[in-house]
């Protein structure tokens, strides 16, 4: 089958960028990595890319294909082109990280963020003579996070990182979960506390991009959400993110539907006047065009607040749902 590649080149010595087009013949089972190696070995020895294991375990070959981060050794050409031999695949280095050369990124920021979450077990108390005794379910749960091969795909495409490089970003946060969720670690509370600060778990915009691009089913966003739940349970509620989920939930338990008006004060703090005032111009604009829901003026929980039809049945359901125990969220490729 014919394969057409348009690869973005970066020349580190000249400081220039450009594109190289390649057209090769290869079997139908060819992966993007196979194709790039074929190019490198037989067409253009100057093409730089990182690769090693060819079996999605070393994490070297992550790159952007048609705008989306992928592991090259896992990406079948025929799936990428949907069988269309005329489709020219656009290949470039990962996003959100500087490029050293061609398809090779400088991943120092990636590793620095990793180090920033204290990514090593910190047990407390005397070491047992034999192994720590822990339930297998916990180990299985952590193994899903340990599946992370540090390829950088999630970081490459993280939508928050695009606008804010101080966000710890999915990979490091998933790694943080691996410790927060490990019963052998003695610093869970400290970890969650630190992670609840700016740039941490509450800064994720919940766009699922990292879940979508992760080649190993780590689902970093789900780990972030698990840590949010753990942080709330641990009483770490004095931050906007925690207040946001609380006011939202309160809005539903009170009236069954979202009360948009009180989202802002409820999240930022009822007495956070400066912040509330920043929203006023927007709120006024909305009011002027009839978008301000006046039936929401009374905050949830106060007498007279808006309640949907049949709220008493919803209330019963909510009350009884407290006895449920949800299975852990998974996304597998």
């Amino acid at each position, binding site marked *: 089958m014919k394969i057409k590649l348009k690869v973005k080149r970066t020349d580190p010595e000249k400081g220039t960028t450009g594109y190289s087009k390649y057209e090769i013949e290869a079997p139908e089972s060819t992966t993007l990595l196979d194709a790039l190696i074929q190019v490198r070995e037989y067409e253009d020895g100057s093409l730089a890319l990182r690769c090693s294991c060819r079996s999605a375990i*070393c994490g070297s070959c992550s790159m952007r294909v048609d705008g989306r981060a992928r592991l090259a050794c896992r990406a079948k050409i025929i799936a990428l082109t949907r069988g269309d031999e005329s489709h020219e695949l656009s290949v470039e280095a990962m996003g959100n990280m500087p490029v050293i050369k061609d398809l090779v990124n400088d991943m120092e920021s990636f590793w620095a963020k990793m180090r920033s979450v204290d990514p090593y077990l910190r047990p407390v108390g005397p070491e047992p003579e034999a192994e720590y005794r822990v339930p297998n379910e916990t180990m299985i749960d952590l193994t899903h996070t340990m599946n992370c091969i540090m390829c950088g795909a999630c970081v490459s495409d993280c939508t928050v990182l695009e606008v804010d490089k101080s966000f710890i970003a999915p990979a490091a946060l998933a790694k943080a979960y691996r410790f927060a969720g490990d019963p052998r670690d003695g610093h869970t509370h400290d970890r969650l506390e630190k992670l609840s600060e700016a740039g941490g778990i509450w800064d994720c915009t919940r766009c699922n991009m990292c879940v979508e691009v992760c080649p190993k089913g780590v689902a970093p966003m789900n780990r972030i959400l698990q840590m949010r739940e753990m942080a709330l349970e641990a009483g770490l509620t004095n931050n906007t993110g925690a207040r946001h989920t609380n006011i939202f939930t309160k809005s539903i338990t009170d009236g069954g539907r979202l009360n948009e008006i009180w989202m802002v004060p409820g999240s930022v703090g009822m007495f956070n006047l400066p912040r509330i005032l920043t929203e006023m111009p927007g709120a006024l604009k909305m009011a002027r065009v009839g978008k301000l829901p006046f039936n929401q003026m009374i905050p949830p929980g106060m007498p007279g607040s808006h309640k949907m039809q049949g709220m008493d049945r919803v209330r019963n359901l909510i009350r009884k749902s407290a006895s449920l125990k949800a299975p852990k969220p998974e996304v597998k490729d």
Partner: protein
Amino acid sequence: MAVYEHDVLVIGAGLAGMRAAIAAQQMGADVAMISKVHPVRSHSNAAQGGINGPGVGEDGGPWEEHAYETTKASDYLGDQDAIEVLAKEGGREVLQTEHWGVVYSRKPDGSMAVRRFGGMGKARTFFVGAITGQAILHVLYEQLMRPSVYKAMRNYEEWFVTSLIMDEGQCRGAVAMNIRTGELHAITAKATIVCTGGLGRVYEPSTNALICTGDGISLAYRAGAPIMDMEMVQIHPTSLKGSGVLITEGARGEGAYLLNKDGERFMTKYAPSMMELASRDVVSRAEQTEIDEGRGVDGCVFLDMRHLGEDLIKERLEEIYEIARDLVNIDIAKELLPILPGVHYIMGGVKTDVDGLTSIPGLYSAGEAACVSVHGANRVGANSLLDTLVFGRRAADHAWPWMQGKTFKPIPESVVEKDRAMIRGIMDRPTNGDRIAKIRRDMGMSMSANVGLFRTPERIQKQLDTLKELRARYEKVGVEDKGKVFNTDLLFHIELGYMLDCAEMITKSALERKESRGAHTRLDYPNRDDVNWLKHIVLTLQPDGSEKMTYQPVTITQWQPQERKY
């Protein structure tokens, strides 16, 4: 600054390298670690099935059992003093990794779970699903990310070693290129530990990653260190059809069957007692015989995991489930998986004693690059991970006290000149129509054809001639990329040189050993010959450039060689 000074230089940042670095750093040494890839990209991460834990809890069993089984599996070429060390100290290493945080699978009572592995009479292999190597590798790297360690240790990440520095008969570190700048520097040290892993890419196909090019073995050889047992190349029974990617022995450990094209569990004919879990060389030869005698399909036989059930596969063999699905579109819960024997591991390597020390003062080696020998003529599965940890640590444990109180004169920058000239020579060569990749492929395929599972003197001799031709081509081939930054073309060129060194050593040793033992099968000498060949073959480069071949008797402590039956 082109010259750097350290106490301990570790070359290679896989399991052995990082273990050595951690151990040295814990003792207070100024440690530097060089790796041509980021540590977590090291090939240790591809080990899937597990790590043996002799002496760990009840399952680990008495260390003597593990030592005996390792000795037997080595077809009695393993040095039993080294094997005893491995067995006695292995358990402690396994527990150390658990304390550091490895998420070993557990039994209902919370203790670590075990599975059976080839060559072991009982289940003593501890595991993390099918990603044990990756799990341990990442945990070791986590330890290196501790602020105190991270700040203290110098990590030459993506630096490529071009030669070892020898001074007055001692090894004083290495000359290395910073891949990101193309500049060469001298990284000097009092002790150097070579942990560069294996050489699978000398063969094609192979389960190994593209980076497994025998660098350290060749570097040590060129520095004059004796290299031992190179004919002992392990051919793993289950590598995936096409890519050669590894399918863990753990699958058989969980109960998978090997079937020929008639749906027979053919291992009954070759190893009626251990069946699919006989030692790897036995299983690989069985498979190849089935294939050669027409009972294979497309050069493969089959791994049958359908009876294991989807739940067990998803929990304990998820990694290979995904590999099968993504690389060959097969659902192993429902279909047969075509596999064939593939080159996987080199039992041979840099000759060391039980402390990882070579005959060159200041030069140590550990892990797959080294040959102590604990694996002899055939390595038991799940012993490699153990080997890396035990001997990685021991090398550091020996080096640090050894260097106390000694003086080490500074090394001048001029040591770098020879390699600079070598590189200039390669860069200046015109392209001549030949390509590094072509030479490498020709080497790989001819090695597989001529020095593979079943060896004959005619084919081996033919390979010696082929290697001469390849070397001549190698001396003439140039590189396409003339840049300095991240010039992977240049690196491949130098790696090919290392691989050719290794290929030559493998082939020469294979010609020399006139018997069949473990992984080395000579059709003209089909039996084991303990009278003449209970010894290692050692190759040493002499100062005058010639090569000397010597023999090293096998160290026997407890177990006299017996006929090996499974």
